[in-house]
């Protein structure tokens, strides 16, 4: 082992990333070579300075308890979601396995090909406001993360297949601020007259935060169990699900839903700017 090699492997040696068989050879050289030892000591000295400095930086004691507290609220959130899931699972089970529903669905399927959508519509119209928000959030997450724009569950009206081709721009990166300007009628910056699945999420980019806008009904409908906020002449309903906020409002006979992970006030303000256009 010569000096050149020792210096070459010095970092790996100090980092304990060197082959075990090489270790004693390098160590022996360092022990016996004055220059290499000097180099080694210098490297070690710098390291211990950095290490000592960083280890001296410790987290404030209250941070520990703050985090533990935070874990508690995550727990609460998880068990809440489990409850919601349990309820909706029960519902689905009933809907899916009831022989009567099966019979109706089957006969509709047999009689008219497109009937399945009406069935879906019927089922969805019975949803309460809370599960609408839940669906909107799911749709939002899918749209933002996977660049997908469909969710069967928010499908209410219209022909799904019509939009399943390549006509939908699924590249979120070049979709800002509008996901599919060609297919969606735009009036004043918001999509109009398409709803449900045929009005895929329109994604807005607000300082790096993504907000998605969906038309969830092409009609008005009674909203219950949601917080109501009046902002100017307009009424908004706020829902929260899985850590996301949704704002629902009605305009020109359609019901819109804006979803994002930004806070309530911000999302409300953004919704207000959309409606006043």
């Amino acid at each position, binding site marked *: 082992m010569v000096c050149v090699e020792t210096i070459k492997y010095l970092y790996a040696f100090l980092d304990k990333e060197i082959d075990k068989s090489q270790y004693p050879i390098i160590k022996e050289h360092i022990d016996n070579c004055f220059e290499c030892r000097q180099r080694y000591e210098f490297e070690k000295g710098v390291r211990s300075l950095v290490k000592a400095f960083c280890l001296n930086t410790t987290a404030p004691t209250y941070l520990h308890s703050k*985090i533990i507290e935070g874990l508690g609220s995550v*727990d609460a959130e998880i068990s809440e979601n489990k409850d919601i899931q349990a309820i909706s699972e029960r519902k689905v089970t009933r809907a899916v396995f009831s022989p009567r529903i099966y019979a109706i669905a089957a006969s509709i399927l047999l009689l008219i090909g497109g009937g399945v959508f009406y069935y879906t519509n019927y089922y969805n119209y019975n949803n309460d406001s809370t599960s609408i928000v839940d669906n909107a959030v799911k749709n939002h997450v899918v749209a933002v993360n996977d660049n997908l724009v469909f969710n069967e569950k928010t499908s209410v009206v219209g022909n799904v297949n019509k939009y399943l081709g390549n006509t939908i721009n699924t590249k979120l990166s070049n979709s800002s601020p509008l996901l599919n300007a060609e297919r969606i009628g735009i009036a004043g910056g918001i999509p109009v007259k398409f709803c449900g699945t045929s009005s895929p999420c329109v994604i807005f980019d607000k300082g790096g935060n993504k907000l998605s806008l969906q038309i969830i009904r092409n009609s008005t409908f009674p909203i219950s169990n949601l917080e109501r906020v009046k902002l100017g002449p307009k009424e908004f309903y706020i829902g929260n699900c899985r850590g996301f906020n949704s704002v629902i409002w009605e305009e020109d006979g359609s019901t819109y839903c804006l979803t994002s992970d930004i806070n309530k006030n911000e999302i409300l303000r953004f919704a207000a700017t959309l409606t006043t256009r």
Partner: protein
Amino acid sequence: MREENNRRKEFEDVAMEHLDSLYSMAIRLVFNREAAEDLVQETYLKAYRFFDTFQKGTNIKAWLFKILRNTFINKYRKTVNLPSEIFYEDVESVNSNLSYKQESDFAELTDTLETKYNDLGNLMEDDVKHAIDNLPIEYKEAILLSDVEELSYNDIAEITNVPIGTVKSRLNRGRKLLQKSLWEYAKDRGFIKRGK
């Protein structure tokens, strides 16, 4: 409910002991106590939410550092709007010319290694702080993960999302830059001392 308590206890047992390490890294990334606290807290909550996805038996410290880094980049990109990796790589190639020059400057000084080693004793805590903080971020994180946290090249590559070769070259260049700036601080301190 009991299942959750177990999960919680397990998480606290394995993850909370790394609080100081994560905080120490966070503050070197954001330079601000409050922001560092937020970053660390967010990291822990995220880690807890995704604890199911952690592979038991692998290095939890490395996993936490990876989450910290991703959280930092997300936040950083949101507010400053910088594209991350491409930007870093650009910096690296620009710096590589710079550091070769610096490396040769540095080589000229190797004969005074002993003086230098002794001069390190003059360094104040603030000098070390400035020397670390002024490093380009990808060198800094590699050095802290290796020299302070003593993580393997493999773990560092996993955390920083680059091949092992890149980790090694970042460590090489980063350490040389760091030594150079420490040495400069030390020299200044030495002059001040001798001047008195």
